[in-house]
């Protein structure tokens, strides 16, 4: 344990999540340290996914969902209230990336999948795009396996490869926070190992929040272990 000033990346105060007027969790106060891996475990259906979605405001695309409380994040220019009415949601999601439980490649080639977020942000330079695609695929330990078939359908990859693709896609905009919702639950052992190594490497650039059911995984990679149960988020 290194003593010294902890750098806080995310500050959450009194966070509550409601779905169709039913309370999922309430009054959550927690802080996340910069460049750390925090895991969140707990019984299913308690709102772990909802918690993650509160951090990139993705719940706003779901009808019937409501959020109360404040979340402030420090992206290098001091704390910003991400729920401020003028705060750009699209900019937020470029800084806070998300990987889902089930791999969700878009129905395009591997290359186009990773190019997609770049195009959304307006990047037109083909050289830069090609560089970034290669860079993130190398980072995600996927480059060697797909470098010869970049333009084939992403849907043809195996589950583990698809998930690494989704991680690469989430990384291409260089997010400062990465949210992962049980990213290895549907994968084989080898893929799990690869992705865990990946996350440990990414820690240096990102603040990682990971929902995971597997005690072993949590023990292996977590700097901080949280449990969400009985509508409260507590230290393990």
């Amino acid at each position: 344990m290194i003593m010294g000033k902890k750098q806080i990346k995310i500050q959450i105060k009194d966070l509550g999540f409601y779905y169709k007027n039913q309370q999922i969790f309430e009054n959550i106060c927690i802080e996340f340290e910069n460049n750390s891996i925090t895991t969140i475990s707990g019984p299913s259906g308690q709102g772990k996914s909802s918690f993650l979605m509160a951090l990139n405001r993705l719940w706003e695309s779901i009808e019937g969902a409501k959020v109360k409380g404040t979340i402030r994040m420090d992206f290098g220019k001091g704390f910003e209230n991400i729920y401020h009415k003028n705060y750009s949601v699209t900019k937020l999601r470029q800084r806070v990336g998300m990987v889902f439980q089930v791999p969700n490649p878009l129905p395009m080639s591997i290359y186009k999948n990773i190019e997609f977020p770049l195009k959304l942000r307006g990047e037109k330079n083909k050289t830069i795009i090609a560089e970034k695609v290669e860079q993130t695929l190398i980072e995600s330990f996927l480059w060697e396996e797909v470098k010869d078939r970049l333009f084939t359908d992403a849907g043809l990859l195996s589950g583990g490869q698809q998930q690494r693709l989704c991680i690469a896609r989430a990384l291409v905009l260089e997010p400062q926070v990465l949210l992962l919702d049980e990213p290895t639950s549907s994968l084989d052992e080898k893929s799990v190992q690869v992705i865990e190594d990946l996350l440990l490497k990414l820690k240096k650039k990102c603040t990682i929040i990971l929902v995971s059911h597997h005690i072993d995984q949590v023990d292996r990679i977590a700097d901080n272990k949280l449990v969400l149960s009985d509508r409260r988020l507590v230290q393990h």
Partner: protein
Amino acid sequence: MGKNVWDMLLGFFAWCCAILLAGSMILIIGFLILKGYKAISLELIFANTSPLDALLFKQQVFGGLFPAMVGTFFLILLSMGFALPLGLASGIFLAEYAPGSIKKIFSLCFDILAGVPSIVIGLFGFSITILLHHSFNSQIFPCLLISALSLAFLVLPYIIKTTQVALESIPLLIRLTAPSLGATKLENIFLVLLPASISDITSGIVLAIGRCAEDTAVIMLTGVVAVAGIPKSIFSGFEALPFYIYYIASEYSDQSELMKGYGAAIILLLICSGLFGISHWGKNRLTAKTRFNY
């Protein structure tokens, strides 16, 4: 599970109904084909004009079905031109923008529109003509434009419903993918959601086209006539296949005209079942290509 008398009766009843239904249809279609196959020929369509001249609109066709087929074709083109943008936009609104309560009200509205008899839609189109005639330009009469507009009203609810249902059936995970990568609502709709539902939407559109091709009641009140040749402009009268068939049934003067009626009926049947086939075959092909692997 015991088989007893009642079971057998139920089975017998079901078989009888199935055979009765299928038999009646086969009787009807068979009768049509038997009576009319002899009429099918290029002459039926183009009469004494050479097909090439007719297709290039160099020469008018007299006594053939070509003008009616052209009329039907332009009807479809124009009415889809009105109905598609309006219907797609409304479907997108209902699926992606409208909150629950508003969605229900509009859905009911469009269900009601879908239930309105086609002749009443035609009457509405006719009323619009009266309105335009009195307030705008007294040169306006029932014509191709009015018919196309009225047909657009007829198929509008179907296009809206098809689009809405297609978009709504996209799984949540797919819906959230692009937004989680920083896409706006509009980008999500056009880059991910619409491409994902294109097969269902297209098949719905093809069915709507079929509806335009077969309708008689609407066009009867809004400008179709028995003889008009190729329509000169959207403000002129026009012919159409379904009306021709109706007209022959009530006004045929000799056997050869009757035969043309049979021929027209077969052609219309082929067009409509062809469109139906395209709609279903297309659905299967496109779904396979854009299938999400999740």
